[in-house]
């Protein structure tokens, strides 16, 4: 009987091994996803740097507003798509927290893009619309989550309707990034989520896409 009872210890050791392999593969999977996002981020970071340098070069001569605006909006659309992948991977992340850092990096990148857009707007008269969506990232309540879910849908619809007329930049407003905090203080963003249009209108209530369009110039 004593030798039979050793089955309890043997099973424990085998379980630790099987479980360890499972967790190991889990960490590998999540790290692989993090690396994918990291690669996308690095590419995007390079592109933003390129766009910013282009703007600087233009200031030396005649500034090509159309070109700069197009580049900016294209880039914003690209990182908007990347943000969707990041969101999905973050939603499926259970064992590691590396993607939170990637999220922060993307928030910084988007803030940088917004600043670049502000600069361009100062120099150009192009009538593209700047839509910044500040959302809550950390522990949103059910109410906030549902609201953000609907905000995302109406902003996607708006973007589909208006295409390159809109520069859409979603930024987490509570991700403990000083630059973003300065920005939310500067534009007096008091609650999350808030949609800020052209740095003038701040929308915190649920609206239809048509109602939202009325705030566009």
């Amino acid at each position, binding site marked *: *009987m004593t030798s*039979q*009872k050793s*089955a*309890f210890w*043997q*099973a*424990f050791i*085998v*379980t630790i091994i*099987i*479980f360890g392999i*499972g*967790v190991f*593969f*889990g960490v590998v*999977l*999540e790290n692989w996803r993090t690396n994918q996002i990291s690669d996308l981020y690095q590419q995007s970071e390079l592109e933003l740097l390129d766009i910013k340098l282009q703007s600087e070069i233009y200031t030396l001569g005649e500034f090509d507003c159309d070109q700069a605006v197009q580049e900016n909006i294209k880039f914003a659309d690209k990182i908007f798509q990347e943000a*969707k992948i990041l969101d*999905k*991977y973050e*939603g*499926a*992340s*259970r*064992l590691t927290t590396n993607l939170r850092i990637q999220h922060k990096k993307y928030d910084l990148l988007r803030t940088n893009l917004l600043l670049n857009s502000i600069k361009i707007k100062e120099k150009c008269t192009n009538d593209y619309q700047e839509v910044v969506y500040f959302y809550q990232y950390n522990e949103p309540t*059910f*109410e906030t*989550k*549902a*609201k953000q*879910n*609907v905000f995302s*849908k*109406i902003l*996607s*619809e708006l973007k589909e309707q208006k295409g390159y007329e809109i520069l859409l930049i979603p930024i987490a407003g509570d991700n403990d990034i000083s630059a973003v905090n300065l920005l939310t203080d500067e534009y007096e963003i008091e609650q999350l989520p808030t949609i800020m249009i052209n740095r003038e209108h701040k929308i915190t209530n*649920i*609206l*239809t*896409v048509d109602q939202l369009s009325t705030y566009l110039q």
Partner: protein
Amino acid sequence: MVDILPLVYLSYMFISIYMLTLFLIIYFRNKHRFFTNPQLTKHYSVSFITPAYNEQDTIKETIEHVFAIDYDNIEELIIINDNSSDNTKQIVESLLSKYPKLRIINNDENLGKAGGLNKAWPLTKSELVAVVDADSFPKEDSLKKMVGFFDNPKVGAVTCPVLVRNKNTFWAKLQHIEYIAISFGRKLLEYVDAIYVTPGPLALYRKSALIDIKGFDENNMTEDIEATWHLAYNNWDRKMSLDTGVSSQVPTKLKPWFIQRRRWNIGGLQCITKYWHAIGKKGMLGTFIIPFFILNMFLGLVGLSIFFYLIGTRLISNYLSVKYSIIANTPFITSEQFIITPSILNYLGVILFAAGLIYLLLILSILGERIKTKENILNLPFYLIFYLILYPFIMINAIWNFYRKKYIWR
């Protein structure tokens, strides 16, 4: 709550893998003697006792099956008619002339199953006492396969697989799968001295062991579990013969099934309360059986809480989302929301489910069940996904009734 959920899921997975591994290790160590029984060297005298309350539909067949058992030293069969209001008494009395070893005790008041058993077993004249439920039918070879275990003087009780007799409804077929899995598990537990029940349909007790534990606990809803724990407490071994069986009627509808399982759970809770002091002591009773019962209950309750938490939060989220979608005049759901990125827990869950299914198939195959039937292809996944999920609901109901001391038999 959200942050601890992955840890809770991982804990469940760990425990599931552990139990699966433990059972497989015990099986592969002992598979060469899985179906073997000790040689029948001594023909111990056996008295059968059958408590019966309103069992007119099955009692005749039970009596016939007992007397059809191929064993030459059956002393008697005592039917305890527990103040039945139907024709149980008349049916038994009509068979007295046909079976000279048949006896009947008529209770003037309903004593309950344990009360009836306690009235009968001290009257028996044999070395072994076999308890048979009034709706159960032992196989002809049951005693020949079971009695040999008593050559070991430490053995206090012997059990055998309970098989479903009325496999004619979907619900009964699911119970058939369950009973097979339980029998397999119980045999495995025998090798580590952890059999925790010798079920009522057919259990063979050494009379001196019954004297030692002072019979059956009349306050317990599951006198068979209590008696087995009491035997373990008093250091009696419990054995199982997998090579024979007893068929029994099972509830064919959800409600009676639920009530039966609730009774089992309440009985389990009574046993935990009664033997709480034995945790960590008294061999496998305190180190495995009681902790296993408690863990089982704990996991069921935590699982159910998580289930309700997830359902509740999902309902609230969906309600708010729909409400805001209506205001915003946007679709409630978009095609993007259907694309799910699986987490590692999803992958592990699928692997674990597959392992559970393979384990179940292994059991069925070892116990000679036909697996590749259309029925089983549907029933097995249903059993694993839906049938087992009902257990925590029964448990919570049982705890509530236990707390209110509402011990309902039927």
